[in-house]
């Protein structure tokens, strides 16, 4: 089965081609074609996964390009990491495809939506199958394109178009670093293939600062894609797209591609301690920083967006401190519970037609399925035992603890506390208390089965998935997906205590404030006003970047435009003006001196069109004269020189 893995991205690709060219000819604009294609890919992925569990490995390549004697062989590979990603991507994509049947029903661009969703799925699957940096980068950009198109789904609104542009451009900045990193890798390893690169590094031919530089530059791409600090600014704005898109692209898959990149090129990173430290610290700062912003957001999707940024930071820390399995495992569990939270929020938005949590409240009675599945997703995110998030977060904390990164450990503990707080706050504001907007509350209703069934499936997974990497399964996942050799961190009471304390404190505080009102929200805000303002404004990064980069670049472009028009072209026009004056003078001169030969040529030109008739014959004559003189002078220069 594993040798059929290449078919997995082909199916959604075919669906993309079909829907975009002929979708209108079938019922539902081809939505069911998309669902069926991704469904088939899911089944195939599971079969491949089972095969890989049994020890199957596949790699195949072909000569994609050649230069002189060198061939550039590129292709695909299936190993445990890829097999895991295949299942994650096809599973979430399939559920989102189904969910969208209800969620996007009646949308103005329903066909376009399903076409691009298929293209995205195909590209994302291509990305995880690539056995080399070049293909990975190519699909990397393609998922960026799909993200751009899907964020801009409702492009009539000005903000939406801007959000799409911002997403593409911000990630592009990281991609440039990645591109230079790829050039450095090729320069030293003479290959784009991961295996070949790993071999060169293992052989010790490539060491030192160049290796660390290459790793850090590659990581720049991951910082952009996974919305890590300081390129995190695009992800919250990307929420302008449909919520189903947010669940698939901006929670589970595309944003995880950065984490996947680090994992996939781990040979480069693990050989450069400076690079690993960079990954860990960027991740750590992001985890804390984004969680703090999530505390004060009023838009339910924005809470989830900053939460995603923060959780991606957790994964980066895991990878950065050497916890390869921990980072990847958190990617998997997070994909499930965050997709669940997004889809549940979509169900809420579908029901009440607002994203502002202050206009919600008390919805648990109106939307029971949505509420219960959301609650499970929240508990998983908060890291409550024994849900998926507990196990994967615990793994990361253990890896940090084992590596004796004390500062990072406390950063993550604080971030985890904040996480538990903000998600509990969101839960209470949305589903508990009194409805704050009666009209919306009355209108609210549970969503159709196409939407709730995916929620239930994801909720079930969010409950059981964590056990895959727990003592109860003998750390099965760690023995399956690993770098170099399987590594199972030893359980530590200290870590378990703080992991538990973080969610107990976070949830407890949120309940005190938002559940029972024992602590006054007003009082907290009033006492901490500067902090609150800073958080509300997201540390002013948008304003800063707008001022420096957007305005700066546009200003530079204006200067260049002006320079080109006035200075460069001015010199040309001035020279032209001078020549014209001169040519008139010579024109008069040579009309008397030089005979018909030149006039003949001029007459020939003259016959050509009315325009030329308006030109002075002197022009043409003197150009020919100028040509002649240049040649003579030039040849003299050569003769002397």
């Amino acid at each position, binding site marked *: 089965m594993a040798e059929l893995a290449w078919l997995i991205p082909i199916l959604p690709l075919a669906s993309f081609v079909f829907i975009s060219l002929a979708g209108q000819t079938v019922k539902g604009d081809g939505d069911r074609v998309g669902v069926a294609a991704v469904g088939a890919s899911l089944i195939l992925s599971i079969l491949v996964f089972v095969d890989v569990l049994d020890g199957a490995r596949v790699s195949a390549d072909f000569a994609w*390009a050649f230069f002189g004697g060198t061939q550039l062989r590129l292709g695909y590979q299936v190993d445990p990491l890829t097999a895991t990603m295949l299942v994650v991507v096809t599973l979430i994509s399939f559920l989102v495809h189904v969910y969208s049947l209800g969620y996007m029903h009646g949308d103005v661009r329903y066909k376009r939506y399903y076409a691009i969703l298929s293209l995205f799925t195909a590209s994302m699957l291509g990305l995880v199958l690539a056995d080399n940096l070049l293909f990975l980068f190519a699909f990397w950009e393609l998922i960026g394109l799909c993200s751009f198109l899907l964020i801009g789904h409702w492009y009539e609104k000005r903000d939406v178009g*801007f959000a799409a542009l911002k997403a593409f451009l911000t990630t592009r900045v990281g991609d440039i670093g990645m591109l230079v990193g790829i*050039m450095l890798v*090729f320069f030293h390893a003479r290959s784009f293939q991961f295996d070949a690169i790993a071999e060169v590094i293992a052989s010790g031919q490539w060491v030192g600062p160049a290796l660390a530089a290459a790793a850090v530059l590659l990581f720049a791409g991951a910082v952009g894609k996974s919305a890590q600090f300081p390129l995190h600014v695009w992800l919250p704005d990307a929420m302008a797209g449909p919520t189903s898109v947010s669940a698939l692209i901006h929670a589970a898959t595309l944003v995880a591609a950065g984490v996947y990149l680090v994992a996939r090129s781990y040979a480069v990173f693990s050989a450069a301690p400076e690079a690993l430290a960079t990954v860990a610290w960027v991740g750590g700062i992001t985890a804390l920083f984004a969680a703090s912003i999530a505390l004060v957001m009023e838009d339910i999707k924005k809470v989830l967006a900053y939460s995603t940024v923060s959780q991606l930071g957790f994964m980066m820390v895991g990878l950065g401190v050497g916890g390869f399995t921990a980072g990847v495992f958190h990617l998997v569990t997070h994909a499930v519970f965050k997709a669940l939270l997004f889809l549940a929020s979509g169900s809420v938005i579908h029901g009440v037609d607002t994203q502002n949590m202050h206009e919600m409240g008390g919805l648990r009675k109106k939307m029971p399925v949505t509420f219960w599945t959301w609650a499970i997703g929240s508990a998983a995110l908060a890291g409550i035992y024994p849900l998926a998030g507990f196990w994967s977060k615990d793994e990361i904390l253990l890896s940090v603890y084992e590596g004796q990164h004390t500062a990072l450990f406390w950063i993550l503990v604080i971030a985890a506390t904040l996480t538990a707080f903000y998600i509990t706050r969101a839960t209470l504001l949305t589903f508990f208390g009194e409805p704050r907007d009666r009209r919306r509350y009355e209108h609210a209703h549970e969503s159709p089965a196409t939407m709730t069934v995916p929620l239930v499936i994801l909720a079930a997974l969010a409950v059981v998935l964590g056990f895959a990497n727990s003592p109860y399964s003998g750390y099965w996942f760690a023995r399956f997906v690993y770098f170099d050799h399987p590594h199972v961190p030893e359980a530590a009471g200290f870590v378990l205590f703080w992991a538990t304390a973080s969610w107990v404190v976070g949830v407890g505080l949120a309940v005190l404030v938002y559940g029972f009102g024992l602590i006054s929200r007003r009082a907290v805000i009033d006492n901490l006003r500067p902090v609150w303002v800073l958080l509300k404004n997201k540390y002013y990064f948008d304003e800063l970047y707008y001022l420096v980069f957007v305005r700066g670049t546009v200003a530079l472009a204006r200067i260049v435009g002006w320079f*080109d028009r006035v200075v460069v072209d001015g010199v040309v026009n001035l020279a032209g003006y001078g020549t014209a004056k001169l040519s008139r003078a010579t024109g008069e001169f040579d009309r008397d001196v030089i005979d018909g030969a030149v006039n003949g040529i001029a007459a020939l030109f003259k016959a050509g069109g009315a325009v030329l008739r308006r030109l002075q014959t002197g022009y043409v004559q003197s150009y020919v004269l100028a040509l002649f003189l240049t040649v003579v002078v030039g040849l003299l220069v050569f003769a002397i020189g």
Partner: protein
Amino acid sequence: MTLTFIVFLPLLGALVSLFLPKENHDIHRKWALIVSLVALAVVLGMWGPFDAGNPGIQFEQRANWIPSIGVSYHVGVDGISYPMLIITGLVSVLAILASWNIDHRQKEFFAWMLVLQTAMYGVFVALDYILFFLFWELLLVPMYFIIGIWGGPKREYAAIKFFIYTLVGSAIMLVGILATYLKAGLGTFDIVTIAQQANFDPRFQFWAFLAFFIGFAVKVPMWPFHTWLPDAHVEAPTGGSMLLAGILLKTGTYGFFRIAFPTFPEGADAFKWLMALLSVISIIYGALAAMAQRDLKKMVAYSSVSHMGFVTLGLAAAAGAVAQAKGVGDATVIGQLLANGSMALNGAMYVMISHGLISPLLFFLVGSVLYDRAHTRMMDEMGGYFSKIPVAGTILAFAAFANLGLPGLSGFVGEFFTFVGSFPAFRTLVIIAALGLAVTAGYHLWMMQRVLMGEGKKEESFPDINGRELAVSVPLMVLIVLLGVYPALALSILDPAVSQLMLKLGGM
């Protein structure tokens, strides 16, 4: 004979068209289309007999012309010129189709379009300096009239500017040609013979390379010789812009491949840094200038300056790789360095081909499809075209993404190979050029946001793309995708000739 047929068929067609009735407008465009299609068919027919593995000249034909001074009629193609013939044939056909609704003086217009084809084909097959120069100069005349008669409001200024600029370049090049002929002392103007047999001292090579460099750089155009281009492009009628951007600019870079580099390798060595520097300036400056434009057509014109910078960068990097290889003892290292150069050179050729497909598509969309509907080129006056003309809007988005180097489309492949191949020779410059990619993405996205997204003017409504317009766009789109997905397709033709050039530069 095949090449002679291809070159002179359009000219013959133009002559025949002089006898067609002036009043019957339809007959001229149909005649021009048929002639161009036949020429294209013959070019494509060469695909089979063309031996891709052979790096040398094929379909060669030689005849004495002015034997007393060694001028001969010598034509032929290799892996560098054959792809150029293909895009010349294709873009010519599409440019005529794009000019279908030219509304005045149709007879002259299509006759000039045919003459232009002869000149373009001629430049790419000529293997004699005099013949090359003749075709090179012949390019100017039809383009001058096409801009000057059928152009926009500032057409006269643009036409004269275009003419003077390139004429000055040509004059300096002619000096180079005559000097090369005299210095070589072989009694022949044959490009191949001189490149193979002449023994020029480095001092001479320096000056001769400089002369050709100026002639070609104006045509490319490289910064700071570029200011004719925005004016010419903006004022030219759509068919003219398509050929100007798609083919005429490439005659400049082709000149480097065919003449300047193989004949004066020491000259290339002397100028490699300057060339790389000007290339990177062109890339960044062109992108920034493009961003500053409100006029969509002008934006596309400046983006050509930016993209052609990649071609010259790749060329410079080939010389750079040779310089690095000198004084290295280890054969493996030499091999790797030359492979870098080969990659950069192939990348440069690839950008030429790719830009020869993407820029005509963009100029067609902007100058024809959008302009015929909205009657404006100002981006601020557009908006909401994704909704108003979904198919045309999607094709414009496709072209924009191709132009900004989206993987899976041809633009990426060429730029990627150029970058990776040039990196070892010019690390800092390549990194600076890579920063330009953000600007490139920026102005394309900003354009899409202004033109395609939003609501646009409420009262506006136009018909979506029509059959003829699709017939122009789709062939270009198909090739852009094919070349973007599987580069071996083009490399199998390009690489043998390019790699041989690389070996020649390396003195092997």
